[in-house]
């Protein structure tokens, strides 16, 4: 099972620069999209002036706590809507229609809160270490203690990332920023629900492939560290936001939300209290207990010193008083859960207050804010959870009053709609195009600014999705990985030093006899245990990629071992790497003197070392054109030789050969 490592350091300068460059380019595209949308609407509005619909009247009294309209509340002037805005100003996405009710405060909190969270998470994804660091240092470790099937699934999903680190990492930035903007811009209506569903969909992708199902299949599951996965709360919020508006019109939804959260809190309390899971002991036989170890590891994350001190101090406190910390946590979770389950607004308010304090303390002292260290992807679970239960409380206690639009006069009914004057219709294809432009312009003029902005947000998501999908469809890794490991290849134009050696079949072969073909030449130690088998594998893969041009390409290697240079060794290597059956493969050897001359001519070194070490040698490939000139020198040091880096080197070799083939 290939790992998710690419073998490159997380702070590789080439990758970081390429990532930055891709983000800047895409940012310009995003800016252009919004600019075009804004200009188009501006032009459309000026071309098609719209008659605005009259403001809706407000009923007497207001339903602040979900009580039916008509029950006046003391101390408040009649007619003031809960949202503080005059009723009727809110517009849906479908046009200048009158709104029957303002956005419920609970819903608004969820929408704006999670919109901001998605944008924040997207910005975090733009950290320079993400392309290489996220799969290797975040995703793979988070799946490491899960069952094998979870690891396989996470690996499979993470392979496009390791193969195309720039495109996929940039995609995640724009997808998350786009979803965030979408939630912020699209307040109600179909656009808003679509945005909410996008949030659910993407959240599930992140939960499965990025959080390994939130670690629910791994040992050590605890609410304190974000179980069952922060992004699951994003999904829950998305589902709630996708509900029809009328679902928010009664306290029932709030009651259900709090009940669900109550079940969750009680369940987490039971889990935390479960014996044998290591949470009751701060230390075990002198070693840090489960919770203490987790907190200590968070304190060692790169972060401001004062924060690290606070977290480390709490780790020490937990080590000394683990039982008390766990007992407090269990009681607090159970009490909050019970308060939420009660359905009583007063108890729920107490529960919300307690939960906010608990979440804040956990977020600071245990989760360590969640997003520090250079590879933090989100502020962990406490903030999203807090948004949910506060929203649930608001949904329970603050339902907006119903408002109705005035009945339009029959004669003015058509004038109520955004019906600008229609120009005379033209005929023919040009006329149809003109009609289309006209109706498009009319639509733009009548569409609310928010809807257009939401459409722009969708376009931002697509700015991320489309290039990433195109890259992921390519089964070969990005050659930038190879360049990040071995450096950029040197472009030269010098005559390739000649040689005459024996190939793996015992036949005499000279470089001159290969004129007319593009030659990919490398040097391999047949008994090497690491680099050379990888390079041989890459050459074999490049040969398969270039199969259509097999007659014009020659892949060749010269033995690079002072001791093991027999035909038997060469043939054993060929069998090992699957090179024996390739028609355009040569693995050549000769006497030690012949080989040493060739090594010298090509700048290769090969030296036997004592005490059981393999021969010391460098790794280089030469791309020789049909006239016998070296045109590129590629450092083929494969590094750790992961699946991604091997594929990337293979692409680099193939591209180099194809370039020379194309240039004649």
């Amino acid at each position, binding site marked *: 099972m290939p790992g998710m490592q690419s073998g490159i350091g997380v702070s590789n300068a080439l990758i970081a620069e390429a990532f930055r460059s891709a983000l800047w380019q895409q940012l310009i595209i995003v800016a252009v999209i919004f600019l075009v949308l804004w200009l188009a609407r501006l032009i459309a509005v000026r071309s098609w002036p719209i008659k605005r619909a009259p403001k809706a009247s407000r009923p007497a009294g207001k339903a602040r706590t979900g009580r039916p309209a008509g029950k006046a509340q003391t101390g408040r002037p009649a007619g003031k809507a809960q949202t503080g805005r005059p009723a009727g100003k809110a517009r849906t996405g479908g046009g200048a229609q009158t709104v029957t009710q303002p956005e419920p405060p609970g819903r608004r909190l969820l929408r704006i809160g999670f919109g901001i969270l998605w944008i924040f998470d997207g910005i975090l994804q733009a950290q320079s270490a993400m392309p290489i660091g996220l799969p290797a240092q975040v995703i793979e470790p988070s799946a490491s203690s899960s069952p094998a099937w979870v690891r396989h699934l996470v690996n499979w999903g993470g392979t496009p990332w390791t193969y195309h680190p720039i495109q996929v990492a940039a995609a995640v930035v724009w997808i998350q920023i786009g979803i965030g903007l979408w939630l912020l811009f699209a307040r109600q209506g179909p656009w808003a629900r679509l945005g909410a569903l996008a949030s659910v969909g993407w959240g599930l992708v992140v939960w499965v492939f990025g959080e390994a199902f939130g670690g629910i299949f791994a040992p050590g599951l605890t609410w304190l560290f974000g179980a069952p996965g922060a992004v699951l709360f994003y999904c829950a919020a998305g589902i709630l936001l996708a509900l029809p508006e009328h679902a928010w019109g009664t306290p029932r939804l709030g009651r259900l939300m709090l009940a669900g959260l109550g079940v969750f809190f*009680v*369940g987490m309390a039971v889990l935390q209290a479960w014996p044998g899971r290591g949470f009751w002991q701060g230390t075990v036989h002198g070693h840090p207990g489960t919770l203490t170890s987790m907190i200590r590891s968070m304190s060692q994350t790169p972060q401001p010193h004062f924060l690290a001190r606070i977290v480390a101090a709490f780790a020490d406190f937990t080590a000394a008083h683990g039982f008390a910390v766990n007992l407090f946590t269990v009681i607090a979770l159970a009490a909050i859960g019970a308060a939420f389950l009660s359905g009583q607004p007063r108890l729920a308010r107490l529960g919300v207050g307690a939960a906010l304090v608990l979440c804040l303390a956990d977020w600071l002292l245990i989760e360590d804010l969640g997003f520090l260290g250079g590879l933090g992807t989100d502020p962990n679970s406490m903030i999203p959870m807090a948004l949910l239960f506060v929203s649930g409380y608001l949904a329970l206690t603050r339902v907006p009053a119903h408002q109705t639009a005035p009945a339009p006069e029959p004669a003015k009914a058509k004038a109520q709609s955004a019906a600008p004057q229609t120009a005379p219709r033209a005929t023919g294809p040009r006329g149809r195009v003109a009609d289309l432009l006209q109706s498009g312009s009319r639509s733009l003029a009548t569409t609310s600014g928010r809807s257009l902005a939401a459409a722009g947000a969708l376009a931002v998501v697509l700015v991320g999705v489309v290039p990433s999908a195109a890259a992921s469809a390519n089964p070969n890794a990005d050659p930038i990985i190879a360049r990040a490991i071995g450096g950029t290849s040197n472009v030269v134009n010098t005559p390739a030093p000649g040689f005459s050696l024996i190939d793996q079949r015992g036949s005499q072969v000279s470089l001159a006899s290969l004129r007319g073909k593009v030659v990919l030449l490398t040097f391999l130690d047949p008994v*090497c245990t690491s680099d050379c*088998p990888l390079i041989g594998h890459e050459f074999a893969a490049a040969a398969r990629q270039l199969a259509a041009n097999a007659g014009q390409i020659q892949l060749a290697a010269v033995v690079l071992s002072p001791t093991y240079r027999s035909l038997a060794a060469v043939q054993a290597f060929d069998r090992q790497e699957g090179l024996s059956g390739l028609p355009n493969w040569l693995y050549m050897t000769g006497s030690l003197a012949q080989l040493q001359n060739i090594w010298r001519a090509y700048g290769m070194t090969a030296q036997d070392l004592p005490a*059981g070490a*393999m021969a010391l040698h460098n790794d280089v490939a030469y791309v020789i054109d049909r006239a016998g000139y070296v045109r590129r020198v590629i450092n083929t040091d494969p590094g750790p030789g992961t699946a991604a880096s091997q594929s990337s080197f293979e692409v680099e070799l193939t591209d180099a050969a194809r370039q020379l083939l194309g240039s004649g």
Partner: protein
Amino acid sequence: MTRRACAAVAIAAALLAVTAAGCASVTSQARSGLAPPPPPSLATTLETADGAWAVTELGGSAARHNNFWQLFQRPAGSTTWRLVTPPGVASNGGMVMAGLGGPSLIVGFRPSQLLKFTPLATTRDSGSTWSPGVLPADLANVPDALAAAPGGGRLAALLAGGRIDQARPGATTWTPLTSVHALAAAPASRRCSPDMVTAVSFSPSSDPVLGAACTRPGAVGIFSYAAGAWRMAGPVLPAFLASRQVQVLRLTNTMSGEAALLAARSGRSVELLVARTSDGTHWTLSRPLNLGAPAVRASGFAAAGSAWVLIDNGQAYTISGQSAAWRRLPRPPAATAALAFGPAASVEALAARGSTLTDWELTRGSRAWRQAQVLLVPVKYGSSG
């Protein structure tokens, strides 16, 4: 929400948490029954008329490919060991050696990492110079995976998949001789029913001889090949061992014939025996050495048929060529990887730690080990990474 509903929900939450705890907890059931015993280490010594050879592991972590197997040689009459590891190949996977007679030796480098075949090296001058060779397969992980017929003619190799290959002098072309499956199917092996070949050797008449692990109790899996057929050629066990399953741990040629180290198991109990023959037919058995549960960590034979064993619990035993009784040695120094028989009935303990080989000597009649030599080995850490 009614009280009943609250209670129901709370119970549901508790059940959910229990389920989650069950999913998340990692439990492993202890397996009943015994795991197969691990093979003895590749660390061993070989004594010839021209001196002694020793294979030990030095360096660091095998997981990080920082362990390097080394070959040492001590000329006859000398008390000093020298490093003679053949150059040009990484030795992280282990080394197996076989005497070719006189100062000659052949060594096989077990493959490691991405190397899948076995480079060979042959010396004719006690390790001063080496000639390369190739066995295009993966050598088995046992100290007797390589054997040479008396006189250094034919070679036999036990491969990792249970196949046995042979080669003519020069070791350029290897051909299959047999396999564990073919051997198990042979009529001669019915009494033993072998499931694993554990050693390869040659008889004094240069017939290939195989050692195996028998699944049927009471039989010793030593097979010799002659006239195109395999025949069971091992000793007959005494009655008190008739109920035990026997595994051949070592099989070798000595100056006086063949010798084998046998492990007879019953449950967790192991009895070690040395079997010797001068004609391939009549065997003598030593007294059994009752080990209880521990396994043999390393073992070796001397040219005269003496044997030594190092046990997992740190104990060491020897048995001389003519004796039937085991002798327990004073506990060897820490990190002892192999023993060797020195001059004047002395015993040497080769302790390998990091880059240092320390030779400890136990002279005849002495109860304490004396440091005789410290050899610093220039291990190239990180060279195989």
